[in-house]
């Protein structure tokens, strides 16, 4: 084995106590040091951690930020989600390609720069965007792309690309990023100035059961998308048997079009950690893990510093706020490029150092989660709301919003509007009002809740409201103007699900490939009316039979547009003549057969010889 590799692996493993449950961090460390995790590295990691070789390999191959092939010292990942595609992705990509002299997926011959693509990196309000190693670069143009390459060639340091820092804590030395918060509307819950320690003090003045009761009274429901009542979840976890219980903060924010958790973490991280601490007190947990998506690694040092300050201030660690026996601490687990890891049981698998595959339910995480221990998983925004509820009281929180959907909601708005960014609005607000706020002058369609959500139609749906009972959303609102081809949107979303399916269950693994294939046939104008029924039936089957939420939502881009935008499909399909399928391409079929057979078909020889 190459000596440098051996040393690197030993160091990385050693720094994490050779602990196989830290496999994602170990592989990340080796990837960073060596530019790849090859066969030799896999063997060495298995040796030091005592894991099976294939267990290491499965982690390397699951997460898109890891690679077996050597990557450049600098990896440029262009966000190629639909918002970026509609705001100049193709030109930016070309500029990078021509300036680098390579195409997407390749590395420059000097081994310096790899050019790659990735799904949404949570910068949709400042698209086109890219990640250069950990550094987000935003508002890309062709000029900017060329300049970036030239600079990287001289200094090779992505951090030096940041000339002007963004607003708020983006300018903090530990973040030092060009990212902008774009908070356009501050509401009464998330963004009010925080009073450090107050929420925890108030919680400690109550019994854990009283804290849970307060959360129930507030009627707070999960902000990560599913809307599960938070008080009930905590109660189950409190009742569950087990010495060791854990609180997880879901900061994976992988749903394309969602970026509100990034802004909360940048501006109000204390609120989130306080929420975790309150949850720990209520549930009886001593450990917390924040699962931070790999795309937000640029926030890691800052968040670690916030944790460290909280420890110093007695808000974390032993005997929190002087309460004897109340111990709680948080570590941050970085993800590595996988959307399904936002699904709560995949998140737990990932924290255990394994591929992000969902777990079988039941048992539910509150019964048996991380390493079999009762685990509460809550979204970033949910936990920030918890802190506010303790500060101001359940009643004042419940006064916002509606009966079934109390409080406010952060929306991340992107696409064809004047003022993309973050809006804190009361639950139950009409979509029309949201569109007015963000200056969407001419929306013809709005995607609510990202690819997993639904496409709503103008103007029929615009009086509907944002809340759990009507247009539920984890926060994503993508606006599309009349010039957009919605089938482009649908196709991009289906590409996303095909790429992000974990592959565990049949319907999601195979079905999404089939949906995408038929959609492509229709997009190329070779579809038939019966294809629409095929898509509907296949979509319904995948939704019904898939194992986790990813598969259960993945046909939504197709099934929701087939309902509300059927005409865009109908315009592209027509019946085949003489009972032949229009998608059948005789030339291509013969060519394919020839490739398999390894020689020209007799038929073709005859034709050419004639």
């Amino acid at each position, binding site marked *: 084995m190459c000596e440098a590799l051996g040393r690197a692996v030993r160091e990385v493993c050693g720094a994490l106590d050779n602990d196989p449950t830290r496999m994602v961090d170990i592989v990340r460390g080796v990837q960073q040091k060596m530019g790849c995790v090859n*066969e030799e590295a896999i063997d060495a990691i298995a040796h030091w951690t005592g894991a099976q070789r294939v267990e290491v390999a499965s982690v390397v191959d699951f997460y898109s930020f890891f690679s077996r092939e050597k990557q450049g010292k600098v990896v440029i990942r262009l966000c190629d989600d639909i918002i970026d595609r509609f705001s100049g992705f193709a030109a930016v990509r070309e500029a990078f390609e021509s300036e680098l002299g390579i195409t997407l997926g390749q590395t420059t011959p000097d081994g310096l720069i790899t050019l790659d693509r990735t799904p949404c990196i949570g910068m949709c309000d400042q698209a086109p965007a890219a990640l250069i190693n950990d550094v987000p670069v935003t508002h890309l143009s062709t000029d900017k792309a060329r300049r970036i390459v030239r600079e990287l060639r001289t200094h090779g340091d992505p951090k030096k690309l940041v000339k002007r820092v963004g607003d708020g804590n983006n300018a903090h030395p530990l973040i030092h990023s060009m990212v902008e918060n774009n908070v356009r509307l501050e509401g009464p819950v998330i963004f009010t100035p925080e009073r450090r320690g107050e929420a925890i003090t108030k919680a400690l003045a109550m019994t854990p059961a009283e804290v849970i009761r307060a959360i129930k009274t507030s009627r707070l429901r999960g902000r990560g998308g599913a809307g599960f009542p938070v008080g009930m979840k905590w109660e189950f976890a409190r009742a569950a048997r087990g010495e060791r219980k854990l609180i997880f903060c879901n900061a994976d924010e992988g749903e394309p079009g969602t970026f509100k958790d990034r802004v909360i973490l940048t501006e109000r991280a204390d609120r989130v950690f306080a929420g975790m601490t309150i949850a720990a007190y209520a549930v009886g947990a001593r450990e917390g893990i924040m699962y931070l998506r790999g795309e937000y690694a640029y926030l890691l040092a800052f968040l670690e510093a916030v944790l460290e300050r909280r420890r110093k201030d007695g808000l974390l660690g032993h005997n929190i706020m002087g309460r004897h026996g109340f111990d709680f601490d948080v570590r941050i687990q970085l993800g590595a490029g996988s959307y399904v890891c936002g699904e709560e049981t995949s998140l737990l698998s990932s924290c255990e150092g394994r591929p992000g595959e969902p777990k079988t339910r039941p048992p539910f995480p509150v019964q048996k989660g991380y390493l079999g221990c009762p685990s509460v998983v809550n979204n970033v925004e949910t936990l920030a709301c918890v802190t506010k509820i303790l500060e101001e009281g359940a009643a004042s929180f419940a006064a916002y919003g509606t009966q079934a959907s109390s409080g406010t909601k952060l929306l991340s708005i992107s696409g064809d509007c004047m003022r993309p960014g973050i809006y804190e609005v009361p639950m139950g607000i009409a979509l029309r009002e949201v569109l007015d706020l963000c200056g969407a002058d001419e929306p013809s369609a709005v995607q609510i809740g990202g690819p997993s959500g639904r496409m709503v139609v103008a103007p029929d749906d615009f009086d509907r409201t944002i809340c759990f009972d009507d247009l539920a959303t984890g926060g994503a609102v993508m606006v599309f103007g009349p010039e957009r081809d919605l089938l482009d949107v649908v196709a991009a979303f289906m590409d996303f699900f095909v790429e*992000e399916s974990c592959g565990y269950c*049949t*319907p999601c693994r195979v079905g999404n490939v*089939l949906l995408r294939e038929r959609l492509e046939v229709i997009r190329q104008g070779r579809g038939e009316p019966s294809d629409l029924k095929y898509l509907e039936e296949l979509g319904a089957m995948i939704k019904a*039979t898939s194992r986790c939420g990813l598969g259960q939502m993945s046909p939504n881009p197709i099934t929701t547009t087939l309902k509300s935008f059927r005409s865009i499909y109908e315009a592209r399909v027509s019946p085949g003549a003489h009972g032949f399928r229009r998608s059948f391409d005789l030339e291509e079929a013969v060519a394919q057969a020839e490739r398999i057979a390894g020689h020209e078909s007799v038929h073709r020889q005859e034709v050419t010889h004639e």
Partner: protein
Amino acid sequence: MSEVILPTSEVIFTLDGVTVTAQSGQTVMEAAEAVGIYIPRLCHKEGLEPYGSCRVCTVTVNGRPASACTTPVADGIAVESESDQIRAWRRTVIEMLFVEGNHFCMFCEKSGNCELQALGYRMGIVAPRLPYLWPKRPVDASHPDVLIDHNRCILCARCVRTSRDVDGKQAFAFVGRGSRRHLAVNPGSRLCDTKLDVTDAAVDACPVGAILRKRRGFETPIGRRLYDHVPIGTGVEQPVELTIREGSPS
């Protein structure tokens, strides 16, 4: 969602309208099987930890789809298994598995003993309505006594679980995400690098013709194989039919 840990007790639920008595802790599939009702399955095999990947055993529990092999019974639940809708779902799952790999039954040694093929027959599939995906997949014939033809692997993890939990070897696992997910061997990269032995239970765990013993081809002639004359599931259905009690949903 709340956890009830009780000693095993009797649980009564309905399965397609028939009242079934089961033991708490049983899965819907086990409880059905105990009263002679077969729920189709591929990734589940008796004695192995339920895995829930193939989704062939999909039923509805109080109207919500769930996999019968992983769902525990509960008092008063109404399970549906043989509705037209559910049959159509299962049929599509089987078709998906056929088109995802390369299954040429006419020259597969497993033909007649293959659970995928047998389910295809049971469900009346003559040819898939889904387009074939024709993946390129390798064959690993490195091992002296056993071969893996990845073209036929349906990713059921029966070999994975059997090798790990029965043979104690962990000779198999999956790597890759989404449609790139595939079976890998452990350690090393070829089957001959593993500790797999031809007598291992894992070799017999495969429901299809992906893991085969060498030099045993056509030992049992076609026509005398498991599913040549009786559909898959018959073994479950016949002997215990009398224990089904007719009744109305409670």
